């Protein structure tokens, strides 16, 4: 088998060691970008989702505006505004912020994080408000405070309800990250575009990268399946 692979590598001029390395670097960039934005996005989304369920409109209102704005506009537009817009602010190049926003990684990370945080906020909020009234009343009857109710009753159950919708969001985010290549990042798609531009072989360059995305999605689906089995095991029939 390795013989076959090395022979095949020697025969074609598209999948050389150099281009495979470029794909690998693209994979690393994509995984970094998606993982970090999802992680930070989730950390932001949890408190926002809880505050979004508060009755006081001065608390929930601004969060509604935020999620509405970021869910209501294309991610590509958000990325353009953050990447090109920030560079147009007069004098930004002289501040320390420029060290962060000069390279495409941080503008892309910011755009992706804010976007996924908005979607995740709404997913978690939906799961929170779907808590059966009876559970809350029972918790109240036990004399649990708001904090304790949230921690012991509402959030653990909300997590069970949210995990399926959230797994979709994670996969969408992976695929949405392909647009990072428009702001000069060499992520997986960026690597594929560079290789395509050199070889003019769109099928080879893009089908190969599509397979890598499929593989990543497969891993994500597997992980979330395990997580769902763990979180939802009380719903399985007793004898299975």
């Amino acid at each position, binding site marked *: 088998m390795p013989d076959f692979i090395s022979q095949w590598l020697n025969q074609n001029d598209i999948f050389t060691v150099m281009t495979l390395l470029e794909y690998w670097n693209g994979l690393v960039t994509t995984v970094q970008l998606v993982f970090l934005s999802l992680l930070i996005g989730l950390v932001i989304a949890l408190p926002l989702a809880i505050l979004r369920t508060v009755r006081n409109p001065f608390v929930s209102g601004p969060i509604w505006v935020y999620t509405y704005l970021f869910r209501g506009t294309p991610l590509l537009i958000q990325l353009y505004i953050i990447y090109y817009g920030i*560079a147009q602010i007069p004098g930004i*190049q002289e501040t320390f912020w420029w060290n962060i926003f000069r390279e495409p990684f941080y503008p892309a990370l910011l755009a992706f994080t804010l976007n996924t945080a908005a979607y995740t906020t709404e997913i978690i909020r939906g799961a929170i408000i779907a808590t059966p009234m009876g559970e809350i009343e029972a918790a109240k009857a036990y004399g649990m405070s708001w904090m304790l109710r949230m921690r012991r009753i509402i959030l653990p159950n909300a997590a069970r309800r949210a995990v399926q919708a959230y797994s979709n969001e994670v996969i969408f985010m992976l695929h949405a990250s392909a647009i990072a290549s428009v702001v000069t990042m060499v992520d997986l798609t960026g690597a594929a575009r560079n290789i395509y531009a050199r070889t003019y072989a769109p099928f080879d360059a893009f089908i190969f990268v599509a397979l890598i995305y499929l593989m990543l999605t497969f891993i994500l689906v597997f992980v979330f399946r395990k997580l769902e089995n763990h979180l939802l095991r009380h719903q399985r029939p007793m004898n299975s």
Partner: protein
Amino acid sequence: MKKILIAASCALAMLTGSVQAEDSIRIAFDVPYEPFEYKDENGELTGFEVELAEAMCEEMNAKCEFVIQAWDGMIPGLLARKFDAIMSSMSVTPERAERVLFSKPYYNTPGGWFAAEGFDIDVTDMDAMKDKSVGVQRGTTMDTFVTENMTGVVNIKRYNTADDMVLDLEGQRLDVVFVDYPVGEQTIKNKDGFIEIGESVKLGEGVGVAMRKRDTDLAERVNKALDTLKENGTYDAIMKKYFAYDIKV
């Protein structure tokens, strides 16, 4: 039987008819790429290559249709028969020539270096250029030149459009831009605070009309028409409208 005959003759008539009417050539451009192809104030497609294409079609007695196509999809679009020829500043390269059939080159412009005022580093001095950001348009001959000569030295950033690249030069994300000279002259040098630096670099054989490999008849007609235009002064007249210097090959 009669019915079948009529149907068959109808089909035959349609077939031959369509062959005769097929002398409409669809030519693709990627706009804006001033001054080669762009839209004027009225939204009309114009520019050096557009006018040259019009003259060429007239010379060939062909009906031409102009199609707008983004650079990324140029060659795939041609091969997928979305259009029949590309006249969008496509430089002749061996890699491209494997997929498409090129006419004889009809112009050649050098690549030019552009930067913000005050940039005084020699672009050929690799030590001084170390870790500078250089912008190119992905898949152009300028990209190939920088990739071959400066990989590992400078930070190469590849853009889908020249517009995005110029924005990043203005935003100081790029130190230097290496771009087709007329485009740089028009979109960068004309701006306050930006200058041309170093020597422009002559790249490759020039720009040709790209067609599908099997369309050798079309290529022959295109070559003949271009030769005539170059000789009878039409080419020079169009060139003078857009350029102060000679780009004829």
